[in-house]
């Protein structure tokens, strides 16, 4: 499992119907990886588009002496997609800046508990972000972005997506960590018996 390898701490749960459980977790992981790749691709495409249209702006302004005014608005829109959709990939890849020092000082299993808790808090925040941004999108639907003539909601859409994907990525990881913790505890109980 890619995310298990990325964190380097958790293994596939091994109780009950092992092969069925492993398969379903594997399928879930693959689906999440694909979604994360799609987010990264969308952000990368936005970045390349940003460079191209800004190149056009500079060329238009200084060579053709005609400034394409729509570029500035579209650029601000694209930055939103790069930021929020790219951040969702960051949540999946665990690449955001964070201070993991303190929880690592706790040692096992408290470190894993703190890690799962952090993921669940992040997932809950993702839900809040998603709901609030959906509300913002509804407000902005009737207002157009200047120069682009598309609803203002398109500016809020990436934040909504970031909330949804963060909830999905962090929530899944958190839940799987908790399952793993329970399995580890069960296994050690069995050994002590």
């Amino acid at each position: 499992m890619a995310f298990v390898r990325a964190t380097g701490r958790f293994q596939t749960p091994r109780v009950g119907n092992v092969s069925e459980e492993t398969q379903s977790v594997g399928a879930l992981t693959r689906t999440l990886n694909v979604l994360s790749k799609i987010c990264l691709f969308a952000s990368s495409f936005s970045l390349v588009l940003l460079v191209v249209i800004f190149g056009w702006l500079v060329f238009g302004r200084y060579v053709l002496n005609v400034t394409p005014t729509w570029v500035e608005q579209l650029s601000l829109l694209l930055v939103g997609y790069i930021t929020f959709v790219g951040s969702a990939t960051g949540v999946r890849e665990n690449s955001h800046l964070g201070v993991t020092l303190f929880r690592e000082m706790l040692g096992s299993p408290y470190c894993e508990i703190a890690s799962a808790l952090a993921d669940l808090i992040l997932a809950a925040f993702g839900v809040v972000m998603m709901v609030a941004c959906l509300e913002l999108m509804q407000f902005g639907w009737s207002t157009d972005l200047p120069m682009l003539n598309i609803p203002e909601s398109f500016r809020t859409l990436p934040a909504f997506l970031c909330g949804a994907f963060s909830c999905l990525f962090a929530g899944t990881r958190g839940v799987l960590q908790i399952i793993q913790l329970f399995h580890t505890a069960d296994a050690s109980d069995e050994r002590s018996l």
Partner: protein
Amino acid sequence: MGLAILLGAFGGCLLLGVPVAFAMGIAAASAFFYEGFPLLITFQRTISGISVFSLLAIPFFVFAGEIMLHGGIAARLVRFASALVGHVRGGLASVNIFSSMLFGGISGSAVADISALGSLLIPVMKEKGYSGDYAVNVTVTSSIAGIVIPPSHNMIIFAVAAGGGISISKLFLAGVVPGMLMCICLAIAAYAVAIKRNYPAEPFPGWRAALVAAGAAIPGLITAVIIVGGVLSGVFTVTESGAFGAIYALALTVFAYRSLSWTSFVTAVTSAVRTTSMVMILIGFASAFAYLLALYQVPTLLTNLLVTISDNPIIILLMINVMLLMLGMIMDMAALILICTPIFLPIAREIGMDPIQFGIMLLVNLGLGLCTPPVGTCLFVGCAVGKVKIEQALRTIWPFYLALLVALILVTYVPAISLTLPAMFD
């Protein structure tokens, strides 16, 4: 109570290991909720926090840096630096520091600097008899200079965190001398250690070879000239110069150097997206967080607290520096710029410090934090690139820390170091 919720939620999330950006968002949302504001204000401020035109320069700078990193510019710069300073004792260390100054000036990223130059120079240094820890320490500490040598996206983050009103072109100019000062201090430290350990000097390749190396490196260096020169001359805005610099870097590595493959391009773009999104989401959530800090008058409270301890500007600046150094040990640079600027800048203004000088002091200080454990991104990357254990590097890094501390003290207490160059262009 609202402030306690804001700081408590932020601290609690950090302790658990929630990413800093989201920790700020969670803390802001909690405080807004407590104050009875609708939760969507948090996200409204976050979205408007990143929808700032001057911030568009950040993806361009990061993209240009990544293209330079993957496009073969570093090797040419190293050859140029080697021809110029390789013949002094411990010559490869001087080459490393000088290359960092040049490459940092282009990429503006310490981590890109270490990845590009470290992977080139550390193996060569080891081969020539330099110890691994020395090679890593020189690479890691010299990469910090790139943060203050323009163009630097951290300067834009600082300008935004300061609430606008700070000229980015003046910040760019203000960083030149401190960046060079850092490199000189590091070169002295590297030279002293090289003499003590009896490291060799490289033979001088001759003026002809030096000219050939310069000819190969100059097109790459022009990227920095375009960006900084474009802004200073007033021809381009910061954002336009960033975009032009990125396109130039792309054209140079694809058509002139022919060193950027499709795979390298994809790697550069995805890497730029990862860095940009990480930095920009921090800026977005920090915008909501900083709004609440201002609402609860945190800067005023802290100013009053510091003034009760001492009203001597020297002591106050010392205390700010110590606090920043301690915070730099546990948190990364971009997050700290965004959190600390709204808190400490009013204090610096209160005691008569120029905001430009404060910005440079902040960047040098937090740059030092990138080389200090337990959270030292540059140190970790450098050790990974150089295949040296962190504790092994830390045992011998002290002369380099000392050199950077000397530079920090000079930048803090001698305003002319940062302010002379901007004043000349007024």
